């Protein structure tokens, strides 16, 4: 597989910077652990990100999606806080696939007998601050034809806007739907994990602004340990719904540089349940392209074989 260089395409990868060509003495891989169980939905992270990175506003639209009016990550929203209203007795998330539940809040009026019950358990309002995952195997980076996307010495994935030609390939290649082109500008933008701040030894703006330490920034290895402890703690308290998302270095993207503690299924927050970096299959893709090309060539040759008519 030499044509893919020494870089690994998927699976566990313990030194992503080295894999990307950095010397052994590169700084440790930095990342985020976002603990949504303590997120209060204040959106300070969204605002701090925009202020620091000079990201333009993303339009003014009351969506009716609970308190979420910025809707999703995108070229002009690099942090996005999701608000999920879940009601019904117990409101515990279905472990199996529940009913389609993409209705807007309050679409299913509760029965009158429930009306006097308190909010305990009967109503949950989940909040979660989403961000680029800075994947170990980043689809966006893999497919970028210009080298505008690159892996930094901190193991993060960053776009250089002065190189990007707006081809949009990264947009389709991100299994999380993170990166996007900015309409009036044409280029791709996403979270830089505050590369400029990292280089100065500072904490990213969003994490700095988060009042509850829902967004924790640090060395990825240390964050993973911290997250494991937190998960254990929550499970001990009986919060069985807590789970880690993107923490597993064996998952489809080799683990996220920004991973999460969630209180429900990932798709409830708008996250893919089992994302896989597209490039995992690039070998198979090229193999089939090769065979198909050969076939086409063969078809061409065969077309000329035989009687002249």
């Amino acid at each position, binding site marked *: 597989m030499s044509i893919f260089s020494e870089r690994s395409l998927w699976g566990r990868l313990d030194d992503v910077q080295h894999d990307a060509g950095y010397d052994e003495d590169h700084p440790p891989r930095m990342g985020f652990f976002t603990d949504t*169980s*303590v*997120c*209060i*939905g*204040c*959106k*300070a992270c*969204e*605002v701090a990100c*925009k*202020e620091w990175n000079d990201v*333009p*506003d*993303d*339009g*003014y*639209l*009351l969506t*009716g999606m*609970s*308190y979420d*009016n*910025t809707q999703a990550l995108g070229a002009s929203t690099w942090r996005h806080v999701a608000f999920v*209203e879940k*009601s019904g007795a117990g409101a515990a998330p279905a472990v199996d696939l529940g009913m389609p539940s993409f209705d*807007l*809040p*309050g*679409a*299913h*009026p*509760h029965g*009158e007998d429930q*009306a*006097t*019950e*308190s*909010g*305990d358990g009967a*109503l*949950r*309002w*989940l*909040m979660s601050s989403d961000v680029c995952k800075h994947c170990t195997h980043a689809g966006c980076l893999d497919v970028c034809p210009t080298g505008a996307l690159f892996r930094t010495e901190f193991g993060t994935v960053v776009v250089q806007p002065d190189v990007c030609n707006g081809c949009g390939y990264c947009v389709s290649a991100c299994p999380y739907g993170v990166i996007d082109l900015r309409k009036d500008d044409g280029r791709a933008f996403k979270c830089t994990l505050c590369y400029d701040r990292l280089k100065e030894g500072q904490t990213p703006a969003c994490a700095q602004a988060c*009042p*509850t*330490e829902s967004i924790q920034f640090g060395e990825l290895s240390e964050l993973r340990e911290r997250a494991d402890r937190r998960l254990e703690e929550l499970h001990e308290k009986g919060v069985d719904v807590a789970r880690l998302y993107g923490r597993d270095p064996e998952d489809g993207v080799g683990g996220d540089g920004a991973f999460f503690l969630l209180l429900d299924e990932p798709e409830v927050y708008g996250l893919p349940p089992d994302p896989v970096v597209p490039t995992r299959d690039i070998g198979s893709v090229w193999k089939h392209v090769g065979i198909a090309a050969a076939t086409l060539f063969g078809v061409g040759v065969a077309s000329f074989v035989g009687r002249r008519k």
Partner: protein
Amino acid sequence: MAEAHPVGFQWVMEAKRRGATIIHVDPRFTRTSAVSDVHVPIRAGSDIAWLGALVNYVLSNDLDFREYVVAYTNAANIIEGRFQDTEDLDGLFSGFDPETGHYDPTSWAYQPDSAQQVEDDAERDRAYGDTPGSQESHQSARSESHGSGGAPVRWKGRRDETLQDPSCVFQILKRHFARYTPEMVQEVCGIGPEQFQRVAEALTRNSGRDRTTAFCYAVGWTHHSTGAQMIRTASILQLLLGNIGRPGGGIMALRGHASIQGSTDIPTLFNILPGYLPMPTASQHQSLDEWVRDDEGKAGFWGNVRSYAVSLLKSYWGDAATPENDFCFDYLPRITGDHSTYTTVKSMIEGSCKGYFVVGENPTVGSSNGKMQRLGLANLDWLVVRDLQMIETATFWKDSPEIETGELVTEEIGTEVFFLPAATHVEKSGSFTQTQRMLQWRDKAVDPPGDARSELQFYYDLGQRIRRKLAGSTDEMDRPLLDLAWDYPTDDEGDPEGEAVLKEINGTGPDGAALASYTELKDDGSTACGCWIYCGVYADEVNLARRRKPHWDQDWVASEWGWVWPANRRQLYNRASAAPDGSPWSERKAYIQWDADADDGKGKWVGPDVPDFIADRAPDYVPPEGAKGPDAIGGQDPFIMQTDGKGWLFAPLGVADGPMPAHYEPPESPVRNPLYGQQNNPSRRKVDHPANPINPSFSEIFPYVFTTYRLTEHHTAGGMSRTLPYLTELQPEPFCEVSPRLAAERGLTHGDWVTIVTARAAIEAKVLVTDRMRSLRLGDRFVEQVGLPYHWGGNGLTTGDSPNDLVNLTLDPNVYIQDKVGTCDIRPGRRPRGPELTAYVEAYRRRAGVDMAHPEDGGADG
């Protein structure tokens, strides 16, 4: 708290991480509820019934912290035999005058210890040249007559420490709250008995020697015609449970704007002067002596009020203030009654107030009954608005809703409006005083743009210009201005140095050096001090408010972060963290304690905080007969600002609407008060004006409760958030929130426009139909609530109708705050435009039978 105080809320989350149970009581399921262990949905305005039932639960199950209660509160005090409770008078206390709506509190007083005590007091009155008892009139319950010491009682009074005497506070309290049962809570608040039980158990289980519970509140309690009493109820509960003055305990007001605490310490209020010195009144205070006499010499530090007052006058008038001229006491203005903001608005409408400064507020959006605000502004000669943005208050003359309806016509408005751009908090240096009474210094980060100036520069300059104009005047009237000590060092731009002002506030001695403590203040004119409680912030000429030592570099009390008044004391009344004998209540909750061996066996109070007590006052100290001021504080009197040193379960005076809280319905309510015949707070302050009609109680035309509140994404009247793209995109349109049941009842569709109507106005907003709004079952009926974030107005990036146009003006009689709840109707679709809007609201008034002859009266009772 997560919504409006997200940064402070980090500590709640920290507490939760460490195992604390978080209980959130709110009509709505909010971001706070989302991370709390328990959310208790409550009908807006019914908190006294809820808290009262918790008090009853504690009292009737003997769950109070008895040792604490007996020693540190006034539970044992015997009350005058003349006292009558709401039990006896169907919702009124003794002393009510239906004519004025005021209480005469004399029947609520402590019984004196002895005839001697009465005689001594009369003696003192005579010394001031009064006839005994004439002070009674001074003791009117009206709050503008009291400063920070609270109302001074005349004597510590007779006590029964067995708490058995039927006339003792404890027994009175028990009887008073007996009718506040869980069943009543269900009927009044819509909270079920199971939930009540759950909270009551959690609360009591987590109180006592080993554990403490804290209450946090903000304007969900304060903004009611019974607001002060809501907070009193919680205070009573906390005192009974022994949760005051102890680590992890307390009842914490979460203040509003960045320095709203500072703006009461060094007040923007009409009735107090810096350090909570009462504003002199025209009727009672003709001299310095008369001004301080009520408080002077009483037990506690408030007894030194003359030193604080004289030092304040010295800081105002410097060398001109001498003992001979009463330290210029006569230069102080005197108040003649209520001059609070809403009363002033009424004076504007009536034409007696001609000019108005609006500095850092946006009343046409932020204050209740927006129409009255605008009618007032439209009737001024001149208006000065100093703000960061072109706010609605500055543009009312061209685009207010009344212009649209034709009620006001631009060409006919004679008000001359001056708009002056102001520097923001990052464009000037200065201090903020936050919720914890902590002063934090802020250095200037950037220069203000264009003509924008700091307040300091503006007022300093204005003062100088006026003084230049008056120079040489011989008119007596101009002396107060000409004699002012009005001289500050300025920077290159002419902006006075903030630290020089801070030093003036801190106070200086005869040598001009900064003082270290308010105990150094003198009443002879040798010291000057701009605010006695801030004395010490500039000790040794160091700006202690600037300290930023991180908490991980110091002990857990973190005394070197900022500076907290008074005396950098992080927790008030912390003497109560020790048992009467001075030992900690428990190891776990140790804080301040008596170390008998310290100071060569003289003993002293020690602990991580500055003791809120006289440092060497032994626990067994009993004040000698005739002791005054701090000397009169007994070794077991932790509440050193009170003249009797005790926490007040029962207020023998000083509270305008009764010695104990009682539940009354909001002025607009769909519910008949099940507790008493008295429907509304009898001493609520009504604002009588045709633009302020009140929805009749139990009206079927206005069947729903509404309440107003904040969103994390916006700030108050919007000038600082609706103008910013990053905040606007987060909440881009005005909306209201309703339950699915209400939506079904009125045919409201999620995301569509709706119109909300009261007798005052109709506004439109988008509607969010959400389970977060609960339908509350009160007995056999449902009460629906409409939630209304109040941030919107006509200017900025996101605009819309102002919910405050809906809100009625009825005020709490203690602090003159408006009520944030009311009743309304809600209908699908947008509101009518132009004159049709007036007709639409008029039709509602007619159908509801609003009595326009007495529009201020909902008509349920007097």
